[in-house]
């Protein structure tokens, strides 16, 4: 056995007896060795962004000579928005209460979208006519301007939790359906032959071949949907006045008085960060779930 590479762990070398280098030995090294490389570019971009913000705020400040319509400076957002950290009525703490409501709404909506979306995709995958019947309406759910149908939704679903949920699901379900369907339909033809040869039932085929194979695509759909779900939750807060209110409501209220504008910014930043965190968490879960077998999953740092 002529294993020449030194990088092959002895375990591998001992057992790989057909003379090929297992793919495993191509370890992903280098590139991210220097952590600075990963952080410096986005940090510089952040400084540029802050610079523009300061410049613009300054401009508005000069022109108006008073702070009524002005954009608060970043340090004001931190001082007046975030820093009253644990005050009952000001700063971060009340905002976090609203964010919690948004979190519950978003997660519920996303969960419903995943369950319902996967079920719809499965039905569409089972029958071509079902696919043709459902697909146009899935597209409509995605393309209809959500604000345009909010009054209609109010008539049907009221103004509380239910209607918020519907708004979120309307936005989030489309990427789940399309990506899952794509995943289900991309099962390898030879794998299907293999299942046919072993007389697998339609159900077995779905459970053991199509669904597991669709997980990466499904998770991509969920990742896209998570952004939409946050948007849906915030939009609903802007429109519906009843029921438990989320961070969108907080932002809307804090916009009204100039003195409270730093808090509005704080709310905006919180909502954005929430979206980013959702995105990252779902990415992490996906990576954990499929890193053993799927090429898209890399050991990221």
């Amino acid at each position: 056995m002529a294993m020449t590479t030194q990088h092959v762990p002895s375990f591998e070398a001992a057992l790989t007896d057909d003379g090929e280098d297992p793919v495993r030995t191509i370890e992903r090294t280098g590139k991210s060795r220097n952590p600075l490389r990963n952080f410096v570019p986005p940090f510089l971009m952040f400084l540029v962004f802050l610079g523009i913000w300061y410049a613009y705020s300054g401009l508005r400040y000069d022109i108006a000579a008073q702070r009524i319509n002005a954009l608060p400076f970043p340090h004001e957002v931190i001082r007046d928005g975030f820093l009253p950290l644990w005050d009952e009525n000001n700063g971060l703490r009340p905002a976090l209460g609203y964010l919690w409501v948004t979190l519950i709404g978003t997660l519920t909506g996303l969960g419903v979208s995943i369950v319902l979306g996967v079920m719809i995709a499965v039905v569409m995958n089972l029958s071509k006519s079902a696919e043709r019947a459902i697909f146009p309406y899935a597209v409509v759910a995605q393309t209809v301007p959500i604000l345009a149908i909010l009054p209609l939704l109010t008539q049907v679903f009221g103004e509380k939790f239910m209607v918020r949920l519907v708004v979120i699901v309307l936005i989030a379900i489309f990427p789940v359906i399309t990506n899952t369907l794509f995943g289900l339909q991309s099962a390898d033809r030879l794998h299907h032959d293999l299942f046919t040869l072993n007389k697998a039932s339609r159900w077995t085929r779905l459970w053991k071949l199509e669904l597991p194979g669709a997980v990466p695509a499904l998770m991509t759909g969920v990742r896209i949907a998570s952004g939409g779900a946050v948007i849906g939750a915030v939009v609903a807060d802007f429109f519906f006045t009843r029921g438990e209110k989320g961070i969108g409501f907080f932002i809307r209220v804090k916009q009204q008085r100039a003195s409270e504008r730093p808090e509005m910014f704080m709310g905006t930043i919180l909502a954005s960060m929430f979206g980013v965190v959702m995105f990252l968490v779902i990415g992490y879960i996906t990576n954990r779930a499929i890193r053993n077998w799927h090429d898209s999953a890399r050991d990221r740092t």
Partner: protein
Amino acid sequence: MMTDPGTAAPTSGSGAPRLKFQNVSMVFPDGTHALDDVSFNVAPGEFVTVVGPSGCGKSTLLRIASGLTPHTSGVCEVDRGSIGYVFQDATLLPWRTVQRNVELNAELHGMPKAERQAKATDAIKLVNLVGHEKKFPKQLSGGMKMRTSLARSLVLNPKVFLFDEPFGALDEITREFLNDELIRLFQHEQFAGLFITHSISEAVFLSTRVLVMSARPGRIIGDYQVPFGADRPHDLRFDPAFAELCGRISNDLKDAH
């Protein structure tokens, strides 16, 4: 020829054919005439290889034998209750470990868990993959993937084993190594083997009988009993008789176009 015809008799003839082609023809709905009047039998302990130019309908032959594609005329009788099928590609499920992939066919046939696990363990031993059970296909070399695929079929102890150019994508060293292993498996299991390849030396090395197929529509234009015994040592490939037989098949194939 160096080989004594007395010892040349292949290990065939032990029992009724498990795979029977009688005047089988195949015309695809688009009019492609893939197979024309193909007849041959494969008995237990026989290993028949079909060589032919690419696109000659060899794979179609195998798909008909397995029942994946219905043929258009003639009779094809196969004991499909216990069929092994090895594809051109290892067709492993990437989300399953080697162990779980090897269990797959048995699992689809409803074999109880404990039994299929034990059988998979045996099959993994048989293809020399012990120690790799917990790996995922992504971590395996091409040869190791193919052995996993072989093991997956072995678990069901197939009476008929169909091979669709399984080693075509592997490098020559790996291919010869797996040929040696396949000979060993064949001696161990005594299935009826039908093997498709475009490598003449692989065909001669593995088989008890080689059929040569013409370009489309595929017809059998050559039929050779391979005069070597059941033992096929690695260096049989350098035997003049081996080269001579390869040469004759090669000549047939020259006319096949």
